[in-house]
């Protein structure tokens, strides 16, 4: 018997009990659909998270103060540290250094007040973060030196305070009661999944130092954003920065009072976490596929019992063990194949709907159904069909012809 005849015979026999076959297929449809939906949603989340980390800017290092009990005399980061790091002789791999002061502050406009992250920055911030303004202009060197009361506003912060994102330049907002003139609106960096980069207010670093955030040490800053010349230079830039800071802070080796976070580490960590999440979700979904497989086994066992006489007859007419085995395996594989194909469509549909829901909620997740996911699901579901079909088929193939023919 050739493959095609077996396949059509299998279809024919499955058609003879439509409801039963349909319900069995449904189990596989749900399993495969769940696997595809979960994996593609997980992939979408991963792309969205790593994408938004990449959106912060490339080649970046973040230098933070750490207060560990091991360090005897921890020093905060200062503007002088930033200057030393931007010295091309001391740190040849470093392109730019952007020091920052940061804190939450009450921002008021027209009686409407909001708690917003306010950052004191220097013009380098524009460069390292690749920032563009949609209107107005960025904070200038003059405004930094003159400690001007000017502010840049993120699109979400603008929306929250003004109810609009344009025509804001020239308005005056109050930060902790002090008036600041808005000189520009920042472009959107996309809704990041963990912190919203669009809900911020930026002011000159000097203004923040003297008027908003008072720190214990003169010229103290909270964060240094260091840009290396290229992705390859990130490691050497990190080494150079460590060297400079250890010298300046006079710390012992192994007892740094600062931490350097590389953006590449964030991406790796984030994609590792989302990968684990995807595997976990996919695994949970795979269990439902397994349950679907047990459904196939159950139905095939019933079918073998019901068709004992038929099996006996086929053997009497010359069917070998392998003929019967193939016949029943074809049936269960056909069940799971049909289920797999419908399940791919279902999973695709679910992913699409989840994408729409996410878009409606401004969550930037685009589920991505890829060819390898589809192949994986098809292979897996057919394997499930064959695996769970094997036991019933083997039972059928092993029946004694005389016994089977006598079966009532």
């Amino acid at each position, binding site marked *: *018997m050739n493959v095609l005849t077996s396949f059509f015979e299998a279809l024919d026999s499955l058609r003879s009990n439509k409801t039963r076959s349909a319900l069995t297929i449904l189990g596989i449809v749900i399993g495969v659909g769940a696997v595809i939906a979960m994996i593609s949603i997980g992939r979408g989340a991963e792309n969205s998270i790593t994408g938004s980390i990449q959106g912060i800017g490339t080649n970046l290092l973040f230098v933070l103060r750490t207060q560990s009990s091991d360090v005897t005399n921890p020093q905060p980061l200062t503007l002088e540290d930033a200057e030393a790091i931007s010295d091309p002789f001391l740190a040849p791999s470093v392109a730019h250094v952007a020091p920052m002061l940061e804190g939450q502050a009450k921002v008021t406009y027209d009686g409407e007040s909001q708690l917003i992250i306010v950052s004191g920055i220097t013009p380098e911030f524009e460069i390292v973060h690749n920032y563009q303004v949609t209107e107005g202009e960025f904070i200038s060197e003059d405004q930094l030196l003159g400690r001007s009361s000017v502010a840049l506003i993120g699109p979400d912060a603008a929306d929250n305070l003004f109810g609009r994102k344009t025509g804001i330049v020239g308005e005056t907002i109050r930060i902790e009661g002090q008036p600041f003139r808005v000189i520009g609106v920042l472009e959107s960096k996309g809704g990041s999944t963990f912190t919203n980069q669009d809900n911020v207010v930026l002011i000159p670093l000097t203004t923040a130092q003297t008027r908003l955030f008072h720190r214990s040490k003169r010229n103290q800053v909270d964060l240094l954003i260091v840009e290396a010349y290229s992705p390859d230079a990130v490691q050497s830039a990190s080494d150079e920065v460590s060297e400079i800071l250890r010298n300046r802070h006079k710390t012992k080796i192994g007892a740094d009072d600062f931490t350097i976070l590389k953006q590449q580490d964030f991406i790796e960590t984030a994609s590792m976490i989302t990968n684990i999440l995807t595997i976990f979700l996919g695994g949970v979904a795979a269990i439902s596929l397994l349950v679907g497989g047990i459904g196939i086994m159950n139905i095939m066992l019933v079918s073998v019992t019901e068709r004992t006489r*038929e099996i006996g*007859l086929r053997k009497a007419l010359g*069917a*070998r063990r392998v003929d019967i085995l193939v016949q029943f395996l074809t049936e269960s594989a056909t069940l799971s194949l049909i289920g797999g194909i419908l399940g791919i469509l279902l999973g695709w549909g679910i992913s699409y709907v989840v994408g729409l829901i996410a878009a409606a909620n401004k969550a930037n997740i685009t589920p991505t159904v890829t060819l390898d996911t589809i192949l994986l699901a098809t292979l897996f579901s057919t394997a499930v069909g064959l695996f769970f079909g094997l036991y019933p088929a083997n039972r059928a193939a092993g029946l004694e*012809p*005389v016994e089977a023919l006598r079966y009532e």
Partner: protein
Amino acid sequence: MGNTVIKAINLTKVYKMGEIEVHALCGLSMEVQQGEIIAIMGPSGSGKSTLMNILGCLDRPTSGEYILDGENVSRLKDDELAKIRNKKVGFVFQSFNLLPRATALINVELPLRYAGSNHNHHEVAKAALEAVGLGDRMNHRPNELSGGQQQRVAIARAIVNDPAIILADEPTGNLDSKAGEEIIELLLSLNRERGTTLIIVTHDPDIAAHTHRIIHIRDGVVVSEERT
């Protein structure tokens, strides 16, 4: 008389049911020549069906030798027996045993499919159906046919592979007397036209009277033989 098709020597068959042993055949010997029509008669439980199963290679004897068409088949493996059944044996059962969802034509084709040849199954099966007078019923399903017609389909299926022997275990058992007579008449005509060797198990002396030779069985052995 022609060649010996069936040569059974000292066949025994023992069924073990836990502690109890049932001796269904107790050293039965018989011979059948090619082209012969044999009736096997005997009381219920005498071992007729057990003998037919062994002659049809559906089962193996516990001991003894069985030579079918020149080949000793008493100790072949399952798959080898399947091949012998396919090539050399045609079965006609009391309860027809047709696939209920398949048409007459497909039912008759079934042995050809398992034969593994790629010849034109349809043509061969059609010819077999025409030979039993059902050329116009090829696409009917069993539930669209009378009992007698269903048994004709079964006979067409039995002859389709051109077997050395046809075994019929009470072929008229599920039919009324008129349909039964027609079936027996069909089997006899196949023997006349094709020289097919026929072994029929029956309780009906009238049917037995139409055969060449009657073998009487009791308690698993041949007790007498008579030529008609």
